């Protein structure tokens, strides 16, 4: 009977199949890697050969012509001397000019260069799937734009803006757009794919699935990366306008990247008139809810504050059912706006008819401190700042990066030390931990026989102590 009991613990067929599949994938990857290395080696050799040939040729030409070519005629005398000097030592005397490489333009490649692996998700903007580039074996995310043929405005402006902005961006915390590819049938353009770098996770599904919340040090790492990405965007006059956990991607090396720029746009200073219908409701700043049409980076910082709260509790911070309910939740958490806390608040379009409880009686201040009892004073200070009702009072992304919170212990965890998670997008799943079944009826009781327990507590003295309780800091 012992053998039968044992079989319940052992790997079942599904596990074996999974194992085999993983092994196969691994082997495939290995093969591709080897192939790539070989190709690179070949290319390098070829390049070296051509470079050597070109150099030899240049040498020969230089000997023949003896000097710069005739078309580089200079008129000013000092240049002539410079030229003469340059003949002896070109590198030191030639003016060092910056060259701005902008690349070229031309037709896009075909989507046939990629093999689809699996679908990841479908959103309002399009379909995302995981794919592999045939030539290199690299895994990418393909995002197909949704095109409504009944749309009287032509191609969707959100998709075009996303392409335009992502092409201009180059930052480690912003998702990279590698290229845009189209379907093979170019007579009718309806299959447009953005080729984005693939990241294993989005923050939202991790938060939903994780059994324990992030450690304080992990929250800091994530938040610092988010702030540095947002700082880059704002530095380049880009407002994201839809920051939320499901738009933040995370890879298995602990790197966070901001994605989904469908709502994003370039702005100027002073900010132009913009639509107030931006940002998912739960992350929408109060000035947007009150109908402002001139706003700036502070609306993104409010979303960052909401994300901060969500990272701590694994639950979206302000889950309003509609705009009014959202405002109610905001005032409950951050207090009711007053003349001191938000001087210009009454001038906003939707604030005129607002009736607020008078601040005379009960406390109408912020309850953030009480809601996050385990957060340090600096953390609460930062969260309070980000969730300041008055957009003027919120810190900019740059100010946030310099905040005391990131310098305090525990320090932000190194990205490489970040825990890994099963990737939903990569079709991995958490290993089911099966608990043993109750003993079957009529089963024979196991005979323990002679067992030695003496070793169990040896080495106890060397173990670390502490961490048995946490202080409530109010």
């Amino acid at each position, binding site marked *: 009977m012992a053998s039968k009991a044992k079989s319940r613990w052992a790997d079942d067929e599904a596990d074996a199949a999974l194992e085999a599949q993983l092994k196969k994938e691994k082997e495939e990857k290995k093969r591709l890697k080897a192939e790539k290395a070989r190709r690179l080696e070949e290319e390098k050799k070829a390049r070296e050969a051509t470079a050597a040939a070109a150099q030899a040729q240049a040498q020969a030409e230089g000997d023949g012509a003896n000097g710069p070519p005739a078309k580089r005629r200079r008129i000013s005398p000092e240049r002539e001397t410079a030229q003469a000097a340059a003949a002896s030592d070109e590198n030191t005397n030639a003016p060092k*000019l*910056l060259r701005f490489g902008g690349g*070229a333009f031309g037709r896009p490649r075909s989507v046939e260069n990629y093999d689809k692996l699996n679908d990841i998700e479908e959103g309002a903007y399009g379909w995302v799937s995981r794919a592999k580039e045939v030539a290199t074996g690299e895994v990418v995310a393909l995002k197909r734009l949704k095109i409504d043929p009944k749309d009287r405005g*032509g*191609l969707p402006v959100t998709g075009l803006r996303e392409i335009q902005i992502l092409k201009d961006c180059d930052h480690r915390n912003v998702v990279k757009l590698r290229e845009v590819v189209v379907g093979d049938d170019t007579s009718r*353009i309806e299959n447009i794919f953005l080729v984005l770098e693939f990241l294993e996770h989005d923050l939202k599904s991790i938060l939903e699935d994780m059994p324990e919340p992030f450690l304080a040090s992990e929250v800091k790492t994530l938040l610092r990366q988010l702030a540095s990405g947002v700082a880059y965007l704002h530095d380049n006059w880009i407002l994201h306008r839809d920051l939320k956990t499901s738009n933040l991607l995370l890879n298995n090396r602990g790197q966070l990247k901001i994605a989904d720029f469908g709502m994003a746009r370039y702005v100027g200073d002073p900010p132009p008139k913009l639509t107030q219908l931006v940002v998912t409701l739960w992350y929408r700043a109060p000035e947007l809810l009150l109908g402002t049409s001139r706003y700036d980076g502070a609306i993104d910082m409010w979303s960052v504050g909401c994300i901060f709260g969500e990272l701590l509790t694994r639950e979206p911070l302000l889950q309003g059912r509609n705009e009014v309910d959202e405002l109610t939740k905001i005032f409950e958490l951050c207090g009711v706006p007053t003349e001191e806390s938000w001087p210009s608040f009454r001038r906003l379009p939707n604030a005129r008819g607002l009736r607020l409880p008078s601040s005379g009686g009960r406390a109408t201040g912020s309850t953030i401190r009480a809601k996050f009892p385990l957060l340090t004073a600096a953390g609460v200070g930062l969260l309070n700042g980000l969730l300041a009702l008055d957009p003027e009072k919120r810190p900019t992304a740059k100010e946030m990066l310099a905040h005391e919170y990131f310098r305090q212990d525990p320090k932000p965890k190194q990205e490489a030390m970040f825990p890994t998670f099963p990737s939903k997008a990569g079709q991995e799943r958490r290993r089911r931990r099966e608990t043993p079944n109750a003993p079957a009826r009529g089963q024979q009781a196991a005979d323990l026989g002679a067992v030695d327990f003496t070793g169990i507590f040896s080495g106890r003295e060397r173990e670390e102590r502490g961490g048995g309780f946490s202080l409530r800091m109010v």
Partner: protein
Amino acid sequence: MSHMSNPLATPDQLFQRRSIDALPIELQDAIFFATQCLTQAAGILLQLPQSVTAQANVLLARYWLVEPMMSHEFSDVSAATIYLTAKLSAHPRSPRDLANVYAYLLSRSTAFFHNPKNPPPPPPNDPSSYYLSEAAYHAFRNRVLALEARVLCALAFDTHVALPHPLAVTYLQALEFLGVPKDRIAKKAVAYLNAALLSPQMLYLTSQPNALAVAAVYNAARDIGAKMPECEWWEVFDVEREELGFLVVGMRSVDGWGRKMRADLKGMMRGAERGMVTRRDVEDELRRRGVEVVVVRAASGNEVDAEEEAARRMDEKMASLEAGG
């Protein structure tokens, strides 16, 4: 760095201009000039900022290095590019506005392409000549939207255009406006930059914005007689003397060349009471020159028919749907 750099034309793309089309190069230049002028005129009537219209000019120039000129009507390409850049900017314009503006510009009453220095008797303003029927509007919109997608696809959806205008102002500030009235020299420099958009040398596709800005500042300073620094000041802005010289000459030649081009174009549109050259004009011109037009006709003719057929069928379907609902 994106506001300092543009994707440039490759030598292959520039070379192909001479082989991609059956069109002689001077005809290509004439079409290029007329269409860029049309875009500028439309930009003014649509009340778009010059930054948006100039981007449309640059995108159109890029597009024509990828696809042959004769594959679509020139005015449609102009409308599609300006629609696209306006849509991506803070000043979108509706297809309806666009259709009205282009209907006027292409009508008999248009003031477009009449020499302002030597005006002919002003065209009689006949509103019926630019009245836009609903069917004509739908056909126009469908053509422009289809072309918008084509243009985007030909450019791999890269709509990035860095204009040299703001750089020129910044450089002038750095040079303390060379001791002359600010607005005078700045206006002159910007005028050079705008004229360069029309140049058949496609200066915006062969030089980076910093070089264009320096050349415009140089030209403006010379015209006004401002004293430039003795040293090689252009190197401060990362421009080589050689490139500067090329651009200075290129920009100065646009004015005279443009005047001649206007006269040539008028000759090409013999007898037509229009401001804008069309594909039919070009085909007639080719026939007059004895160049075999058959090839061009066949290629473009089929495509047009197929497109018109598709548009017509779509309209019919829409009509039946609307009647049904």
